[in-house]
């Protein structure tokens, strides 16, 4: 799973969000490292939607502009949990080996 995809799913994990909400949330989650552009975001959303990992939650008109909210599907939540698990176990191994090899604490 690409990092952008992982971050989008993470942004939706706590509840439904609209496009711009996802962009700002992904920026926060990644501590400003990943700033999605609209085209990239919608290509990812389109793919996630055809894979049934997300779905449209509702639509709103705010200041005469359309907002469409997306949410995780159960299989999307499952997929995200699997991926998070995988990343964590990789990260755990990396950290423990670094400690073993030179005893340098990483902060």
């Amino acid at each position, binding site marked *: 799973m690409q990092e952008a995809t992982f971050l989008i799913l993470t942004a939706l994990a706590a509840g439904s969000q609209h496009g711009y909400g996802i962009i700002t949330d992904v920026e926060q989650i990644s501590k400003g490292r990943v700033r999605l552009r609209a085209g990239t975001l919608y290509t990812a959303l*389109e793919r996630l939607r055809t894979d049934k990992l997300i779905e449209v939650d509702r639509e709103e008109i705010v200041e005469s502009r359309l907002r469409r909210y997306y949410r995780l599907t159960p299989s999307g939540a499952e997929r995200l949990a699997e991926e998070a698990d995988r990343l964590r176990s990789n990260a755990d191994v990396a950290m423990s080996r670094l400690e073993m090899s030179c005893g340098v604490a990483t902060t």
Partner: protein
Amino acid sequence: MRGGDDVSDSTQLERRYLRLLAFYPKAFRREHEQEMLSVLIAGAAEGQRRPSLDEAIDLVSNAIFMRMWQMFTKLFVRPYEVRHRRLLWAFRIVWGLVLLGLAMFALSCGSWWALWFIAGAAADFVFGYRIYQIAQSQPPT
């Protein structure tokens, strides 16, 4: 977020975004154009009048990617039944027109029995449409 005090700036920006969004496939635009436009406008700086180069490249490249992807799926992933159904329609229309032409010709020569041809062509369309409806209600997956 932008303040709405300078209307001409925002409409100009909006028009330019729409011009970039025009690169997307029609079906995608119908569903997502307004939505993407509001995301783009929300992300724009106050007083911004034109999309940044990054934004333009991002939109156009994603649009082209989406078009190529659709072309690919249209060519190779479309189920056989769908192509068959479409082809059958084309065939039916051509055949109906041939029947109709023959009937017109015979009628103009004063042969009233040619009315049966027209009835036949009409029946062909009616039954064909029924079959089409049934096929539509059970879309191939």
